[in-house]
């Protein structure tokens, strides 16, 4: 009878490979956020940016510049908006879940339909009345 030899190098590599694939699949399935944001103007997706790359992006429509989107520390916020009250410059996408400029009809969201609905652990509440 062959004696069991569990830890031959080839086997060990196979176990590690299987474990890595499994962990990768589990992490992917468990993920609801996104490293990408999309910018919609009048309901049309016009820009798609990575949150992993620090940059200041200019958002423009046919009528010219609307605002800048600053991407920093895997977060994004609006600056230099042409709207009259600059309410859209309040807060970042990590804080509010979406950046919206009503006068310029601009909506900036994470590039995912899966909403960050269960926020209690991360920020202490699911949603905010204001």
């Amino acid at each position: 009878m062959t004696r069991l030899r569990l830890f031959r190098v080839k086997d060990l590599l196979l176990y590690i490979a299987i474990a890595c694939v499994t962990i990768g699949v589990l992490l992917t399935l468990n993920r609801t956020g996104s490293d990408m944001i999309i910018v919609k103007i009048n309901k049309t997706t016009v820009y798609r940016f990575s949150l992993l790359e620090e940059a200041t992006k200019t958002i423009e429509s046919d009528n010219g510049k609307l605002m800048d989107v600053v991407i920093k520390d895997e977060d994004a916020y609006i600056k230099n908006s042409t709207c009259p009250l600059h309410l859209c410059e309040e807060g970042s996408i990590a804080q509010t879940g979406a950046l919206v400029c009503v006068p310029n009809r601009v909506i900036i969201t994470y590039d995912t339909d899966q909403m960050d609905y269960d926020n209690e652990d991360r920020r202490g509440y699911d949603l905010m009345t204001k």
Partner: protein
Amino acid sequence: MTLKRNTWLLILMASIVFSFLFFLLLTNNRVEYIGKVDIALGTRVKVVVSADHPERVINAILREFHRIEDKFTVNEKKNDKSVISRINQSDTYPVVIDEETAFVIERSLGLAQGTNGAFDPALGNLIKLWGFDRISDADFEPDVPTQEEIDRAVRLSGYEHVSVEGNKITLENGVALDLGGIVKGYAIDRGVEIGREMDTDATGYIDAGGDIGIIGPKFGGDFWSVAVRDPEGEPDDYVEKVFLEKGAVVTSGDYERTFEIDGKRYHHILNPKTGRPVRKTKSSTVIAPNAMDADVLSTAGFVLGGEFASIMLPPLGGQGYFIGEDGKVKTTAGWHFFTERR
């Protein structure tokens, strides 16, 4: 006992596959939420839903928001289909209105009476004078009206000059309607209704600029935790937290829809008596069984101030949390019912 190496390998792989399937089973049992953000009624509308066909439900809710916006929003420059503009601009009265319009106006008049005019749906002239009907426009230019202009607009205001009989409405004394203080709540209620009609097991919420209506409990059986924004803090700072599995919660704050001229900030909640932005309150939050009432009562609470609001609002179906100009908090007696998970 010894086993062949391949058998051990098989057992190990089977364990991994089993764990994987078990995880999938757990994940599938979790309720998954789909969300969408849109702009309607001059604000950000976020709908988060779990249902058999969540996208269909969300799209139907957002369509309803846009229908209500077209029908009830007064913005002469952008919207000439509004039934409210038709009523306001009519040369003769009564004007014939549909059942839905009569319902919304009658409810607003009832709550105006109940709050002793703290909420008033007939402030159209004042709101137009201050420009708060155009505050979401890209070309809005803020300006502070003169005292004379304000006094005149106050004289041409007041819900007591509005009457509805069946499908007919009459405006007297030159008053104009503006349903901005109720229609967002009405749209949330309609959205919640549509969500539940389309899927009786639907859960989630509608968040229209911080006015919230619950479609159904989180994961089908848990409370949604709703923070009340700190009027003095950063956008994600909060001063209070409530737990809801149904109903609605609405906040009126002096930090929303504001403009600044010569270092002085002006916000959109006007005192119907003085015609100027209310100064004695920083924020007023109201929980009610439906968003329409919560919307109206939060405005009324803001105008009344915590002392009066904490007494007047509960008989009208609202529980409230009010922060005064001095930062002092006043609540209704039943507010604390919502501050703990029950």
